[in-house]
């Protein structure tokens, strides 16, 4: 006697074990040591495909149709071979685009369409409800049956049980609770649930072991092996026909469609998409799954026929539902433990399905159905809330509860009308509608959003019409005439024989029509409509995913502030996670903290991807758009701009450099030019001045000579006068030429210097003697003050004479006659000898004091006082004194006379510091 509470206790124990495994796996994942990053665990998790339908229903179908139960497992096996091609592509696309669900995938492919995402979600939820109800039915029935142990009594289908007394209701509630515990503890950016994956991998093992145990028991304990079992079956008239597989064309068509159906189901059931794509850790795990999963399918099906036949043989009158053989056979043989194990196996299969399916569905409902609507609704003012992660989790929890409850209500309303297998196939047909849209989307760039919407809607409507409504009609929720005569009496629209297609079983019929409409409208509308640039870039991204190494997606042209982006992300992921993520971004860019991040297009895109992980791609786009102003560009546009920009930047850098170099060169040139012009000018000045100075006396000489020559009868007085001028000018000319040559020689360093050791006093005396006549002529007195202690110098005598004579001549020139007084003095100053020639003449104004040492400058440009001399004298003196490292200067005040002084070093070359100022 197995009491109810024992069963319940065992169930709870098992569920808690599952939960513990999930918890452990999640913790290991948080520590970075993932338990599930393992191809075997991945492949086992894919076996969530086998639900209570497999556990119980296969046997049921086999008992009715022989190996007609196989197509449902043939399909996935065949598909597994093709996985390496199409599933890998889907996985790659999903990773690159951070896809979080099936609805997200479809929406992302067709231009991030929120409408499409919503449609997929609705179809998925409505389509899976029958399937969920199937699991609930299985669990509650198996519980009821087991509770009768050792009696075997089928549950009373006619009884209508009040909800609160309905086991199934409590089962639903418990399942919902566990699902919430499994899947909504926290929000993960990538929507991965490591714990859940670990738990269902474990339960895949449990259900396999349970089934194998029953199978082994039936084959080898109840009978004497397979040979004995089949021999007995063949001899039984009721069973024999089941052994032959095919009967007629309809049978082939059936097989074909069922296989196709299950091939699509293994891809597009939300739970399968979740575990095979979203939860996938590494593409390469597929390699293992490709052979391990078919192996599992084989293992779990290998004993189906034996159990079916064993049951038929054991319970010949049909009093026991074939669906329950897995449980009732051990019960009939008094194997309590095995029966309990079988129950746990069935429970395991059912809970695995419900948990994964509801989590996948609730994610879609939250991200792709509820959030887009909430975000757009201004009343809720979600944009003002700072932390929406709790809201997201709550939405998902409610979604789980509602979905499970809806499954329960479907079970109450329509579930009893069909055997388990048929219910399951209805769901398969629903998710098969996603096939064209997804497969077309990843291989055909031309598929448009409009096409997808049209195909999906049409397929879904046909599905609902041919499968869902009849189920309700059979349960008396719709009038029976609906089925037999079509709506409003339109025979052609009979749900089970649409447009007169008869003779097929319901599923095949439904599949043919729904696929026809789906694919037909998908292709037709796609060909007739055009894609927006956003759609086109997404299409390219999806179809060409293997040939692209990076993920440019559509780039944002605009920018936003990094803190704003972080806040936005934080609202949905929670502030800590957002902070972590942004710190990671900063590290990637080589910055020390997120505060240094710039809100450039790259960051905007990274933020968008983060958000997409939490709320789905289309909502993320809306949110980001609210923070960034600009519209996204198409890829080509962006590439062109980037190309141009980078070229322009490079070019302008070059230009900048060149222009800087040019400027520097120009400046140099300008300076050099100025210098040259100056020198040139000076040279020109000198030359023109010399030439002028030379030509002037020449002009008089020539002119007067010609006059004298041409006018022989000129009177004597004039003749003498003219000749005198000629003579004087000739002298002047000679002097000038000599001086110019002299200066030129000295300046060019080609002067001849004959230095001897001499006594300065002697030179001064000689100079005075040479100029005595000048002094006498103007009656100017000259005095000397020559110190005795000045030693002898080594100088050029003639040049020194030249200087002295020049200075003395000047002194005479600028002194008044009679009153003029000139004093010559010689002194020793440290290591220098200094000579002064002082006069009390007219003096020199300050501005002229510098100029007089310049070439050709002469003091006194007045009309009446054109000085004699060439203007070169002082210039030459300076050159001479300079040559001997001395200095020549003047001190003077207008009206107070002038003193010309020069110094000469006494021994060798004196240092400049010693020279008196």
């Amino acid at each position, binding site marked *: 006697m197995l009491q109810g509470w024992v069963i319940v206790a065992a169930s709870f124990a098992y569920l808690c074990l599952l939960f513990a495994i999930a918890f452990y796996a999640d913790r290991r994942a948080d520590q970075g040591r993932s338990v599930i990053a393992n191809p075997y665990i991945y492949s086992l998790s894919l076996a969530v495909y086998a639900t209570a339908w497999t556990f119980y229903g296969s046997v049921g179908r086999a008992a009715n149709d022989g190996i007609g139960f196989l197509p449902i497992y043939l399909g996935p096996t065949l598909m597994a071979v093709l996985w390496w091609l199409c599933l890998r592509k889907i996985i790659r696309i999903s990773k690159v685009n951070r896809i979080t669900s099936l609805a997200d995938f479809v929406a992302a492919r067709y231009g991030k369409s929120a409408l499409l995402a919503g449609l997929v979600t609705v179809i998925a939820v409505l389509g899976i409800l029958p399937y969920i109800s199937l699991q609930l039915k299985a669990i509650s029935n198996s519980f009821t049956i087991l509770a009768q142990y050792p009696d075997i009594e089928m549950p009373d289908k006619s009884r209508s049980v009040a909800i609160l007394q309905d086991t199934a209701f409590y089962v639903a509630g418990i399942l919902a609770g566990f699902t919430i515990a499994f899947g909504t503890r926290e929000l993960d950016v990538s929507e991965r649930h490591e714990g859940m994956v670990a738990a269902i991998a474990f339960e895949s093992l449990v259900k396999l072991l349970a089934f194998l145990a029953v199978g082994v028991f039936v084959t080898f304990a109840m009978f004497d092996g397979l040979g004995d079992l089949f021999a007995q079956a063949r001899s039984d008239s009721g069973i024999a026909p089941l052994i032959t597989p095919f009967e007629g064309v309809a049978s082939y068509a059936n097989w074909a469609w069922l296989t196709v159906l299950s091939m699509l189901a293994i891809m597009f059931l939300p739970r399968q998409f979740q575990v095979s794509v979203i939860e996938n850790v590494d593409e390469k795990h597929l390699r293992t799954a490709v052979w391990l999963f078919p192996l599992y399918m084989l293992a779990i099906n290998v004993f189906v026929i034996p159990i079916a036949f064993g049951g038929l043989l054991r319970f010949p009158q049909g009093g026991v539902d074939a669906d329950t053989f897995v449980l009732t056979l051990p019960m009939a043989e008094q194997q309590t433990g095995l029966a309990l194990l079988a129950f746990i196996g069935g429970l395991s299969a059912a809970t695995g399905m419900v948990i994964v399916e509801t989590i996948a569905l609730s994610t879609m409902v939250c991200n792709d159905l509820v959030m887009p609507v909430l975000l757009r609704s201004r009343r809720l003012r979600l944009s003002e809330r700072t932390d929406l992660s709790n809201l997201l989790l709550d939405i998902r929890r409610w979604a789980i509860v509602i979905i499970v409850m809806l499954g329960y209500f479907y079970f109450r309303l329509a579930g009893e009308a069909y055997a388990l297998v048929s219910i399951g196939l209805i769901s398969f047909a629903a998710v098969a509608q996603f096939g064209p849209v997804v497969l077309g989307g990843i291989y055909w760039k031309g598929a448009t959003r409009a096409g997808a919407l049209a195909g999906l809607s049409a397929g879904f409507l046909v599905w609902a019409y041919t499968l869902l409504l009849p189920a309700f009609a059979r349960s008396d929720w719709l009038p029976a005439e609906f089925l037999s005569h079509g709506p409003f009496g339109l025979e052609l629209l009979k749900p089970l024989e649409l447009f007169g297609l008869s003779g097929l079983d319901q599923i095949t019929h439904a599949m043919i029509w729904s696929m026809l409409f789906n694919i037909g409208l998908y292709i037709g509308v796609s060909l007739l409509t055009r894609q927006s640039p956003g759609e086109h870039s997404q299409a390219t991204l999806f179809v060409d995913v293997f040939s692209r190494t990076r993920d440019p997606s559509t780039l944002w042209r605009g920018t936003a502030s990094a803190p704003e982006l972080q806040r936005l992300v934080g609202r949905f992921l929670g502030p800590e996670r957002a902070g972590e993520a942004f710190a990671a971004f900063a590290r990637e860019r080589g910055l020390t903290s997120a505060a240094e991040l710039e809100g450039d297009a790259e960051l905007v895109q990274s933020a968008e991807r983060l958000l997409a992980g939490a709320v789905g791609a289309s909502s993320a786009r809306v949110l980001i758009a609210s923070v960034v102003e600009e519209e996204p560009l198409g890829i080509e546009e962006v590439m062109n701009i980037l190309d141009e920009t980078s070229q322009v930047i490079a070019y302008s850098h070059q230009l900048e450099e060149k222009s800087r170099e040019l400027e520097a060169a120009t400046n140099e040139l300008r300076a050099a030019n100025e210098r040259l012009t100056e020198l040139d000018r000076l040279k020109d000045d000198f030359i023109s001045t010399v030439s002028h100075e030379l030509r002037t006396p020449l002009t*008089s000489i020539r002119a007067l000579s010609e006059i004298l020559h041409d006018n022989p009868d000129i009177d004597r007085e004039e003749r003498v006068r003219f000749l005198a001028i000629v003579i004087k000018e000739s002298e002047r000319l000679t002097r000038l030429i000599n001086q110019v040559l002299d200066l030129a020689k000295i300046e060019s360093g080609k002067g001849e210097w004959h230095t001897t050791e001499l006594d300065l006093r002697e030179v001064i005396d000689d100079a005075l003697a040479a100029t005595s006549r000048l002094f006498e002529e103007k009656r100017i007195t000259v005095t000397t003050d020559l110190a005795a202690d000045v030693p002898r110098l080594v100088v050029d005598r003639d040049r020194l004479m030249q200087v002295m004579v020049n200075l003395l001549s000047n002194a005479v020139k600028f002194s008044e006659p009679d009153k003029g007084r000139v004093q010559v003095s010689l002194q020793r100053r440290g290591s220098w000898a200094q000579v002064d020639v002082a006069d009390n003449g007219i003096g020199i104004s300050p501005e002229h004091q510098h100029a007089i040492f310049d070439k050709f400058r002469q003091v006194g440009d007045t009309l009446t006082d054109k000085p004699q001399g060439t203007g070169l004298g002082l210039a030459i003196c300076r050159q001479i004194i300079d040559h001997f490292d001395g200095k020549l200067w003047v001190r003077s005040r207008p009206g107070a006379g002038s003193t010309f002084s020069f110094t000469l070093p006494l021994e060798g070359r004196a240092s400049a510091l010693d020279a008196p100022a």
Partner: protein
Amino acid sequence: MAKRVLIVDDDPNILISLEFLLAKAGYEVHTAADGKAALEAVQRIRPDLLLLDVMLPVKNGFEVCQTLRGASESDAMKVVMLTAKGRSTEVAKGLALGADAYVTKPFGTRDLVETVRRLLGE
């Protein structure tokens, strides 16, 4: 009536030679020794020809020429520029400023008288 000629040069020896030459040639000769005096003399005497040295104190020959050519009364007056600087740019400058002839020093006496005669239309 004898044509009037004004000679302007800062070298008195040149003035002497030119004065003799042009007086011998039959002209009424006046002299000035700097630019300012030259302008005053032009105003006062209204010569028919101006013999103008370039290198003059106070105002050089070019300036004088420019000033004279600006005033319409002296349009008819002929201007001959004298200079020791023989560079072609100087010549061009002089001619551009309105000089009728340009003579470089040292000049040939016969050529000079010839030029004066030609300009005064004899």
